[in-house]
């Protein structure tokens, strides 16, 4: 308790616990390890700790990096997160299962279909609800569209960080086409709530297919253009090629998955390794890199756009007829027209909307492949209609740990490029 209760006079500048903790992570002992640190008077040997973010356009949100610099060389990085922590996992515990989907979607706000997919799949595994084939294919179409949209935002903002401004506008132009498609199928452009436990909420409307085919025609061409623009940009290439590589073994020990791991040559992709939602029906390739530098990370993601286009095309060609959501009325709402004629449908509707469905007690961890890596959803049910625990193993959260290993010993400009290629989404990191 401080003595200056009146608050009138200037109080003694005592450091708060927080500030003292903060000062304790400046890594002063590192100075002794540096070669030539004996010349203490040389200003180049001095370490400088700089706060990078949380409000900085190159941190892709509110990521704060405590960077220890020696001149322009990064000696250490401590990521500090939590600025957009909104307690979504706690909120989810207070909602019935079907009402959890909208809040879950808002975690990683660029890949909302993936969040919903991970949660719905986990609940489907707990309840043993089968998703009909058409529902699975529609999910794949939307997941892959979302993957492209997410990669487009990544490409645009990353290029912006590297000094190429115009490509951002091109990327958003194509993303607009995807969001228009989402609006057609679900009525929303973002956070669509399209995926439900047991399938998808509605079948795709008339005209959707034609529009999607037009997009599939345009997209590879446009991706060619992005590649042509960036691969002939000397500045971009110099900032990407050979900067901040990290080998697959270190990445694995750090728990890194997704395009970052594939860029280092490990072809791990859950869509191929452990197919879910009928991914085994489609013919596609897993792009991998060789050395795992920033250029490989860029190239792998750009190549993934083409593969996603291929998957969507096949899913659209082979789209089976049938229901889009499970016919189990205990989990899915009855069709509108039944409500007027069937008493039973009315009861099911009432039960689902008021209480929601009950899930047998148990717990499950279900991973899927999101644009950033393994997105795992852990759900624990206590038998009631609300989950007892929902946890998202968000790839951005885990991948962020690799940033200091990647950047240590390289220039601060390379750090910007690396953070861009890491593609962290702070909504997913902080949840």
């Amino acid at each position, binding site marked *: 308790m401080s003595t200056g209760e009146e608050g009138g006079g200037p109080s003694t500048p005592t450091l708060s616990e927080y500030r003292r903790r903060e000062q304790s992570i400046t890594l002063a002992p590192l100075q002794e390890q540096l070669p030539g640190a004996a010349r203490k008077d040389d200003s180049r040997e001095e370490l400088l700790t700089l706060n990078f973010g949380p409000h900085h356009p190159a941190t892709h949100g509110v990521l704060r990096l405590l960077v220890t610099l020696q001149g322009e060389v990064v000696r250490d990085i401590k990521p500090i*997160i939590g600025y957009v922590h909104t307690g979504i996992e706690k909120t989810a515990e207070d909602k019935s299962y079907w009402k959890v989907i909208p809040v879950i979607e808002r975690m990683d706000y660029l890949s909302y279909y993936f969040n919903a997919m991970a949660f719905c799949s986990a609940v489907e595994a707990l309840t043993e609800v089968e998703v009909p084939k058409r529902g699975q294919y529609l999910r794949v179409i939307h997941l892959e569209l979302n993957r492209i949209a997410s990669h487009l935002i990544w490409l645009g903002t990353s290029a912006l960080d590297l000094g190429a401004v115009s490509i951002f506008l091109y990327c958003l132009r194509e993303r607009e086409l995807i969001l228009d498609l989402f609006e057609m199928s679900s009525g929303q452009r973002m956070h669509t709530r399209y995926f439900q436990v047991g399938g998808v909420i509605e079948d795709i409307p008339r005209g959707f297919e034609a529009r999607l085919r037009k997009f599939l025609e345009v997209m590879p061409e446009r991706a060619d253009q992005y590649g042509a623009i960036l691969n002939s940009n000397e500045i971009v290439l110099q900032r990407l090629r050979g900067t901040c590589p990290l080998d697959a073994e270190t990445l694995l020990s750090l728990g890194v998955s997704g395009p970052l791991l594939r860029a280092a040559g490990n072809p791990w992709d859950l869509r191929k390794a452990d197919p879910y939602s009928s991914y085994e029906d489609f013919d596609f390739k897993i792009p991998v890199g060789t050395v795992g530098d920033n250029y490989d990370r860029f190239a792998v993601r750009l190549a993934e756009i083409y593969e996603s286009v291929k998957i969507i095309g096949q899913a659209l060609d082979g789209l089976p007829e049938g229901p889009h959501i499970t016919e189990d009325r205990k989990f899915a709402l009855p069709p509108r027209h039944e409500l007027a004629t069937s008493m039973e449908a009315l009861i099911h509707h009432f039960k689902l909307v008021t209480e929601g469905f009950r899930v047998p007690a148990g*717990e499950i961890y279900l991973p899927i492949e999101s644009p950033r890596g393994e997105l*795992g959803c852990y759900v624990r049910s206590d038998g009631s209609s609300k989950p007892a625990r929902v946890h998202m193993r968000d790839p951005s959260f885990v991948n962020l740990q690799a940033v200091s290993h990647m950047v240590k010993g390289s220039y601060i400009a390379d750090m910007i490029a690396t953070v861009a290629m890491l593609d962290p989404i702070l909504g997913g990191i902080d949840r």
Partner: protein
Amino acid sequence: MPDATGLELIAQELRAAQGAPPRTASGSPVIETIFFRGRGTLLIEPAHIRGVLAQLRASGYGFLASVHGVDHYPAEPRLGVIYELLDMSRVDRITVKLLLHSERPEVDSVYADGEDGPGWPTANHQEREVYDMFGVIFRGHPDLRRILMPEDYEGHPQRRDFPVGGEPVVFTHNERTALGTPK
């Protein structure tokens, strides 16, 4: 996924090998094997966590996909820590779970390297999150601070007895009362 028999075999191997390290109340490292919805879970004695993970790593589960917490309130021991392991070459997953009493929720950290083998660097942020959200203390973690909540926050919000929305929002007009400072 290992099937039910495979899970029992893994449990047997662990029981055979983990006898030597500090034997606790029950002695055996594996308390229970749970096979649910096609996925295997080993419920283990908390003292054996590093040994069990090291042995599972030696048998192929080299990727620690996730570390997260769970609260079984009002049952005791209520605080659970769950380790999701993945074997990439066999595409096989196994879950290791331990339960801690809320009186003394302490368990060895698996983050740092130790005498009993290398650690799991990926556990760094994830153990900090479990500490932040559930108050589980990871012994030997070099930097066990809050990660998502503010440093000066009190309580562990993901515990089941922590109320939802029970926190007063500070505005200028209720600054004094909301923060609990005397007038």
